């Protein structure tokens, strides 16, 4: 009996086991943090967020890219470092490898900075491609608007990739096939076509919810694209390649800039420094005082609690501040970025000893008001930490050396409290209408004409100077304009591009700045450095790619 029981039991178990089946292997994720369905609105928000955040947790965590410190290699911080540290505006005091390389114009295909910049922009490109693939054929009004904005954000990413790296891998699909390399001039044509297509469908200017983009953004980027058209379509001579002269597109640059100035409804924010303050989303931030949204076309959002990141406005504010300066609205102080002497000299003429600027400076003084009216300029948002501070930087790693930049703060224009003592609320005015005025002025001047639209070049520049309380220009030359770019936009993440256009960057330019190429007086570096190297990692992974000259 017992024997039979056992045999019976064994047989039953055996059958049961074998049928407890192989079907278990067909799992679907049980993780509540992950889903398998495409959520259109949430992926759409992620595309925007890719310009502001570095992962799915703020200020860092669940990173979008691997192998690099998230906050240190955000999209904005990478592009800012490349365009500012490697130019005549900013010099950072830190010993971080990527900082040292950019400060002194000595980067390589191994540099983490180029790797980070590239990986970030391609992350954006890839999720844009995914969104476009998932929504293809959808024609409802909401989707059409979203698709236009996603295309714009993808075109912006490709614009920057073209600007930084020249010939880059190009794809509009998410596929395991390694993308082919596109020529810089061909990518120019693509970005141009995309921006025009987006501009047709995006929100009418100033009708989109704040933080979403409208036609004016496409117009502004088109004007920037045309302004640099000659650079982007130039092919320098190299082994086996014949040089091709670039084609300038000044007229289109002027026309699109004019559209921003006169058609978009965006105007200059009356008080310059409000553009860079904690409540610069205006009424969205509950501020009745701050009028920055009048001008900001593309804000990159930050919020002390809900949108936290190390690599956007917190980086701008903290890296430019340290104890001894006027309050800047966050407990973070990283004592890194300050002005090269060349930048200060765009505003002021130093006295013969170079030890001060016309004697106007005292510790902690607000330079914008302490100056005599003749050279007063509301954009000169500088400070110096102590008596001993000289505008010339003798030791790049000493933060108290050089003049501090007080442009970016988390102080509110209305004096109210910000959301958090550490993480900041200030949005980055990534694209603002002010740019259109200078683009217009430059393009028109380059055409050797007075005006293309309804406005003279002089009027355009003076609109900015008037807002700043600076004296009016009576004549306008290209040297005036490149300096005006610096006065209006210093530390806003674009300087390298302007210098390249004015042939004042790489190569035998006759223009140097302090510590250019690791020499205190400055010296030239090769013209090949006008574009960055394709990162060694991608060159290795994608055999379709050919490295840029000189790397």
């Amino acid at each position: 009996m017992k024997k039979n029981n056992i045999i019976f039991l064994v047989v039953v178990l055996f059958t049961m086991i074998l049928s407890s089946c192989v079907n278990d292997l067909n799992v679907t994720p049980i993780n509540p943090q992950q889903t398998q369905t495409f959520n259109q609105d949430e992926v759409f928000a992620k595309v925007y967020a890719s310009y502001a955040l570095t992962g799915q947790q703020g200020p860092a965590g669940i990173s979008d890219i691997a192998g690099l410190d998230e906050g240190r290699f955000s999209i904005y911080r990478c592009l800012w470092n490349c365009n500012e540290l490697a130019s005549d505006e900013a010099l950072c005091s830190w010993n971080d490898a990527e900082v040292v390389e950019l400060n002194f114009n000595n980067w390589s295909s191994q540099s983490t900075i180029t790797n980070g910049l590239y990986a970030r922009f391609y992350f954006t490109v890839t999720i844009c491609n995914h969104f476009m693939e998932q929504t293809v054929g959808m024609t409802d009004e909401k989707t059409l608007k979203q698709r236009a904005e996603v295309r714009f954000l993808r075109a912006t990413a490709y614009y920057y990739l073209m600007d930084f790296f020249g010939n880059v891998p190009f794809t509009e699909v998410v596929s395991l096939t390694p993308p082919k390399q596109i020529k810089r001039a061909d990518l120019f044509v693509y970005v141009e076509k995309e921006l025009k297509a987006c501009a047709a469908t995006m929100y009418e200017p100033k009708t989109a919810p704040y933080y979403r983009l409208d036609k004016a953004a496409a117009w502004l980027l088109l004007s920037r694209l045309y302004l640099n058209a000659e650079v982007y379509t130039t092919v320098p001579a190299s082994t086996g390649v014949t040089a091709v002269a670039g084609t300038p597109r000044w007229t289109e640059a002027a026309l699109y800039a004019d559209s921003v100035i006169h058609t978009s409804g965006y105007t200059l924010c009356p008080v310059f420094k409000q553009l860079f303050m904690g409540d610069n989303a205006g009424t969205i931030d509950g501020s009745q005082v701050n009028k920055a949204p009048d001008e900001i076309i593309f804000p990159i959002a930050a919020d002390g609690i809900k949108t936290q990141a190390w690599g956007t406005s917190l980086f701008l504010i903290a890296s430019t501040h340290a104890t001894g300066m006027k309050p800047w609205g966050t407990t973070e102080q990283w004592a890194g970025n300050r002005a090269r002497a060349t930048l200060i000299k765009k505003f002021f003429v130093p006295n013969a000893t170079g030890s001060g600027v016309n004697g106007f400076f005292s510790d902690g003084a607000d330079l914008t008001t302490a100056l005599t009216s003749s050279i007063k300029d509301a954009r000169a948002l500088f400070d110096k930490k102590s008596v001993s501070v000289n505008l010339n930087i003798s030791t790049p790693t000493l933060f108290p050396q050089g003049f501090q930049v007080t442009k970016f703060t988390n102080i509110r224009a209305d004096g109210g409290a910000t959301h958090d003592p550490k993480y900041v609320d200030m949005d980055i005015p990534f694209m603002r209408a002010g740019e259109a005025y200078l683009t217009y002025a430059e393009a028109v001047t380059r055409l050797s004409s007075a005006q293309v639209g309804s406005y003279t070049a002089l009027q355009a520049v003076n609109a900015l100077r008037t807002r700043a309380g600076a004296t009016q220009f009576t004549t306008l030359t290209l040297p005036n304009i490149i300096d005006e770019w610096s006065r209006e936009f210093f530390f806003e993440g674009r300087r390298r591009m302007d210098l390249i256009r004015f042939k004042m960057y790489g190569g035998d330019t006759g223009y140097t700045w302090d510590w250019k190429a690791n020499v205190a007086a400055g010296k030239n570096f090769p013209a090949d450095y006008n574009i960055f190297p394709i990162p060694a990692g991608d060159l290795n992974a994608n055999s379709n790619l050919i490295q840029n000259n000189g790397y």
Partner: protein
Amino acid sequence: MLFVFGITANAQQISVSGVVKDATNGEPILGANILVKGTQNGTITNLNGEFSFSSVASNATLVIKYIGYQPIEIPIEGRKSLVIQMKEDAVTLNEVVAIGYGVVKKSDATGSLTAIKPDKLNKGMTTSAQDLLVGKVSGVVVTSGGGTPGGGATIRIRGGSSLNASNDPLIVIDGLAMDNDGIKGVANPLSTINPNDIESFTVLKDASATAIYGSRASNGVIIITTKKGDKNSKFQVTYDGSFSASSVKRKLDVMTGNQFKAYVDSVWSTKNPLITSADTLSANKIRGYLGNANTDWYNHIFQTALSHDHNLSFTGGIKNLPYRASLGYTNQDGIIKTSNFERLMGAIILNPSFFDDHLKININAKGMLVRNRFADGGALGSAAGMDPTQPVTSTDPMFASYGGYWQWRPVTGNTLATANPVGLLNQKQDISNAQDFIGSADADYKFHFLPELRAHLGVGMESSYGIQTLQEDSMALADYPFGRTGYSNQSKSNKSLNFYMQYVKDLGKHSINIMGGYEWQHFYRQEYYVYQGLDKTVYNTDLGQNVGYNYQAPPMFKTESYLVSFFGRLNYNFADKYLATVTLRDDGSSRFSPENRWGLFPSAALAWKVTEEDFMKDNSTISDLKIRLGYGVTGQQNLSGTLISNPDYAYIPVYSANISGAFYPFDSVYNATSRPDAYNKKLKWEETRTTNAGLDLGLWNNKLTASLDYYYRETVDLINVVSVPAGTNFKNVVVSNIGTLQNNGLELTINARPITTKDFSWEMSFNASYNRNIITKLTTGIGDGYYVSTGGTFQGTTQVFTVGQPAYSFWVLKQKYDSKGRPIEAGAYKDPNNQSLGKYTNLDAFVDMNGDSIIGDKDKYYFHNANPDVTLGFSSRINYKNFDFGFNLRASIGNYMYNAVQSGNLNVSKDGVWSSLGNFNNLMTSSLVGNFQGTSALTFTSDYFVQNASFLKCDNITLGYSFKKLFKVISSGRISIAVQNPFVITAYKGLDPEVYGGIDGNIYPRPLVTVLGLSLSF
């Protein structure tokens, strides 16, 4: 039973006496357990090894047992006086050893396997089972993660067959295949078992032995069998305990306060040519930040740590119910203050049998409670970098809100400065509490009508829960001024079920053994955390309530995977001379897409017992000779360690939701975001094909035994994280099958007992392994010089996989040196005293390998690798009368290390000691040799930092004294003193040459430990 009883009842009753001796040295054995078979009639030998029974059936059989000796059965056969010799219970050739789903006589094994018993005498401080394996088995390298109490170790069998996928061997405890992921405070599956409960380890090395475990067996299998009770044996209690003191052996050679002060005064002196006159004021101000103290920060974070460990075991057998129960308690302090490990373990094993032993049941339960307080890992780095001229605490009111600890933040405002290490330790309570339960039950039934046929059913489960709680003062620098509190928890629950049938039949000279079965395993894991600040509350719109500052609580993380397997084995034995084994396993894993889900893993092995041949019968020198040949295929499907967030779903496209702080606004609405995650639907398992040829040799009646194995192993479809072409996936790196790796190796094990006399005996064992691997194919990229970067330093790729080179080869720039032999640094002045000479360029500093006048990736070359070419282990034990003396030595030859501690502290310039953010950084005096000024990022990829890390290490030295009969209750015992980690001989410049992976960060130092041990049998 009735039958047996019948005979006993009819036999004549006689009185019997005798003596029990050690077969080797003739020493009497006291306390041996003697039982008349089939009765409760038993006794114990006295001080002289003697025993007697007044009335025993003349045809009865005596069963003699003594711990550490092989049990023996002696039929009385009417004799009245007996001399019984017992053999010591080393793993001998006739002993059975555990193999997958069964056991085999060691002499009949066809694969490469090593069975060892833990060395009870010579073991040092063993808090984890992994400590017992260190240096003991050829081809097995155990690298502890450092000196963290309760910390884990990396175990590599034959160098590991994988690159980035887990190289951990499969651990099978009492038939239950464990998953390799630890939980809070439980480092790995070996930590779940009390080392004192381990009966034996069997390490399966070649694929013919491991293929029966299929997709999880590529990196070898360690089968652990725990001690069991014996049928009808007497109740016995043993105690094993130890007390130990640990202290730090070596510290980084950071400057003292006085040295540092002098150094800062010199580099920030206005006489330093690198300080311009413009910097005079700054230099004076910076020097003014120097304090007056002379603080050795290490002294304030290290301690002499005391630990104690106690184990009690109870064994016996009540009729058909043998049992063993054990209880272990460990309390171990770390040498970094505040770190502590406390553990309570209990285990019960019952193995009753029924129906004349036709049905054997084995029930096994192990439980563990662990409490671990972690010292802040940042304290080590902080102690090295903190300004030694500052005091630990200060009464200056500016430090009051920091708990009185001296910090840079209130001094210079620097929020990122090196934190006071003492504050880091004392102002943080980071404690994990974990529970682990492992239960298994096996039923083995021998069919009544067909005794050659057995059915085996096994069920098992592991359930663990761990919670780590954090409490950080609001005065703590790390989260000043709000502090931080919260917890994270994990739980896992793994279930398994296996069923197999076995048929064994002898037909004349032929003997066959067929086994076939099925296994089902389910692995489940979940994790959750909540963290928030202490002091400030903010309104959380998602929760609709006030929560702590910087509140973080994502939804719970959950994941699971399944493994379903069918397997079979055929053993064939002809005339006990020729042996053949064939195995086959078919595994299905839920970790791969249906197209790649199933994998077939075959193996075959042959063995020839030469000594069984007639022509060898009379050979008195060679007592044992066996030749083995095997081939097998195994797999690897463990993706942990590959950076991907969830290895269970790596092939499924998923979207990750955002959590706190990562919303994006449109107008005033903060939107949730959803991110497509990288995935690889083509992912499949690695496959490893191993050919093994081996020889087992025994000489002079096995006084010397040796094994020699050669293997050739090829792993295809290696799983690795690889950079993917930009634009092709949702992340810059994706886990992929990347290529092929070959391993070639030779292993030698020798065990010898050169002296075995009554009073003096000497045993030693030696093992040597040679392993060389090479990557033969990479499939994710093409072109000359294609590489997959790995383990690089933060500043650039320094370690790669590339075709034609060993795995983990260093890939670095070739450093140039000046006339004085100092490394040249790009960007530094050629002569600071004569700056008109200019600065060194990249080309001055590094060899331009491709001659293009640009220093870049193409100038890097392959320079050694992190794996040793040869590893050696040697242990020796001498017994003289009651004393025993033993030691274990271990050597690793040809392994190189990237000294990241040195490269991370290379900058000795004025900017290296003073950060512009506002703090001093202490320096190592050895960094002055390199004299780097921090002027070039390329320096980090210099071969200057790749250093030979070959070493000879003594793991422990032990001296013991055994005694018998103490007081009335103690039948025997031993006291011992051991020194663990007494010395290391190496040319390596860092603190410790033994760091897994070849990149030496700042590890928790391995302490020097003195252990006092006590073992007692009652």
